[in-house]
């Protein structure tokens, strides 16, 4: 029997029992669609995180106080030992490492900002001029913090675009003096609008020199130090040297955590890939359910079409051919279901991208391939039993109307 004829016969059977066919196509397509949509959500989350990281610049090493046992957990200090603080002097020592290009000490606090009777509670970031290159800050007006000795507490600040809008409205802000907590600072620049940057909304931020920050909050220690290696190849060397320098400064204690951005990114990546796999797996359960449905419906079809099968045998169909015909029916069915499900899934991912433009929710290619293969696979596997039953029918018995 020719393959084209097998397909045609299967198609005629499917179009001959329309409701049944529609129901099964629906079941398969929901399964495939669910896999596609859910994995595209997971993949979207993964890409979102990756974008967030790479927008920070790629050669970064972060130094946290305390010894973390796991990558990413910043404050997992060993029990029973208070870690030594990171100081500004530590940060300055790191600048002398050959593999290091830039160093930005970081401190974070919260304070009220005043200008002419208007005020606003904002997060305040203490750092140095090098932070601008390290995090790729763009300015809409003025300049960033001046490049000077980080130990100097110059009374200047850079403000986020929302802070500027709310305090100054339409008036110009650069050159004005604002009050932060109980000290006065001159506004030297306004950050360009850019929204979230890994946990901090830069539009709401005020940035001041790290030394000013330490005075303002009476805070000698640093939250962390951002280190930029000269090149991507230097990242590992920089990490090692940073560790060595700080160990030496801390009396031989390994009491800081030095994490490369790549390591953090890889950790997130692993977590999100695992998540995507998990939701994809859960969604594919519905494909299994569709498979069982196909088996049931095919079994019913075999008993409904007993005389037809008997007739086919009487006019010369072999058991292998009967099996093939039922296989083909299930295969065509699940192929159509898979195609419809793919379209549904792509539409669903498209809708998600429309609703949440920050989430690049594209189904990963492996998930699409896996969903289609699973759909067709289950269709065929679950039609094994019905096809076998049909092939084994005794023709004389099938044809007699007993």
């Amino acid at each position, binding site marked *: *029997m*020719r393959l*084209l*004829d097998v397909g045609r*016969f299967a198609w*005629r*059977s499917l*179009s*001959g029992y329309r409701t049944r066919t529609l129901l099964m196509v629906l079941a398969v397509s929901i399964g495939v669609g669910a896999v596609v949509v859910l994995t595209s959500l997971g993949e979207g989350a993964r890409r979102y995180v990756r974008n967030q990281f790479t927008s920070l610049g790629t050669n970064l090493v972060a130094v946290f106080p305390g010894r973390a046992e796991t990558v990413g957990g910043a404050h997992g200090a060993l029990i029973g030992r208070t870690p030594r603080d990171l100081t500004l002097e530590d940060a300055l020592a790191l600048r002398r490492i050959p593999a290091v290009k830039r160093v930005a000490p970081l401190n974070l606090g919260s304070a009220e900002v005043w200008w002419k009777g208007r005020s606003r509670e904002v997060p305040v970031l203490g750092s140095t001029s090098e932070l601008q290159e390290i995090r790729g800050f763009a300015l809409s007006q003025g300049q960033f913090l001046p490049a000077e000795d980080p130990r100097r507490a110059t009374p200047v600040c850079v403000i986020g675009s929302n802070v500027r809008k709310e305090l100054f409205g339409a008036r110009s802000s650069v050159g004005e003096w604002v009050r932060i907590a109980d000290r006065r600072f001159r506004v030297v620049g306004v950050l360009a609008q850019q929204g979230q940057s890994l946990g901090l909304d830069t539009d709401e931020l005020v940035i001041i020199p790290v030394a000013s920050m330490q005075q303002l909050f009476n805070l000698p220690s640093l939250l962390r130090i951002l280190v930029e290696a000269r090149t991507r190849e230097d990242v590992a060397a920089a990490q090692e040297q940073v560790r060595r320098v700080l160990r030496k400064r801390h009396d031989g204690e390994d009491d800081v955590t030095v994490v490369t951005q790549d390591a953090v990114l890889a950790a997130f990546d692993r977590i999100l890939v695992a998540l995507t796999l998990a939701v994809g797996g859960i969604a594919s359960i519905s494909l299994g359910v569709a498979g069982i449905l196909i088996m049931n419906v095919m079994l019913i079809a075999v008993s409904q079409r007993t*005389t*037809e099968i*008997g*007739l*086919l*045998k*009487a*006019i*010369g*169909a*072999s*058991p*292998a*051919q009967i099996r093939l015909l039922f296989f083909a029916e299930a295969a065509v069915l699940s192929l159509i279901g898979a195609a419809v499900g793919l379209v549904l899934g792509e539409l669903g991912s498209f809708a998600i991208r429309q609703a949440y433009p920050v989430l690049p929710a594209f189904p990963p290619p492996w998930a699409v391939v896996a969903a289609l293969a699973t759909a067709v696979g289950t269709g065929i596997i679950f039609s094994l039993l019905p096809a076998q039953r049909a092939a084994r029918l*005794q*023709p*004389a018995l099938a*044809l*007699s*109307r007993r």
Partner: protein
Amino acid sequence: MIRLEHIHRVFPVGEEEVHALRDVNLHITPGEYVSIMGPSGSGKSTLLNIIGLLDRPSAGVYRLDGEDVTALSDEQQAQVRREKIGFVFQFFHLVPRLSAAENVELPLVLAGVPLSQRAPLVGRLLEDFGMRARARHRPDQLSGGERQRVAIARAMVMQPAVILADEPTGNIDQATGREVFHLLEELNGKGMALLLVTHDPDLGRRARRHVRMVDGQIQSDTGAGA
């Protein structure tokens, strides 16, 4: 051509056994025209099913063209059916989804004959059977007589050596039944052996050889060839 030797067919029915055929011996030569008559339940259909390889005997040997076909596998039997045997049934057994032409075409499709050869063959056959105008109709749009004509066309499209007809007129009126008989006899005239079961004594008498079955045995046979 067909040679049955000591054929038995026993059906287990619950605890009991039904002897549908008891020691049947029958020899049929190519091109013969045989009618099989007998009371209901005497084993006529069972006999035809065994000859047509739709059923296997419980005991005995069946040779078709000298080959012991009872020993063949299901796959091999299917091929023999496809090439040598044509069936016509009381209930037509057309595939309801397919048109008249597609039903006639079906044995060719199963045999793997390419479409380019199938189409003219089927067209000519339907023409011969006066069914050309009905080629695209589905079985439920055809009368009983028309359905049986489609079924006969299907039975002979592979040019089998023998046509087995089990009460082919059992489900249609007498006048139409007569036409169906003429059709079958024409095929016989072209050299195909014709074995038919009928309840109608007038029709049965038209055959050259009459086999009468009672209680699973051949009671009389006017032309015992063997």
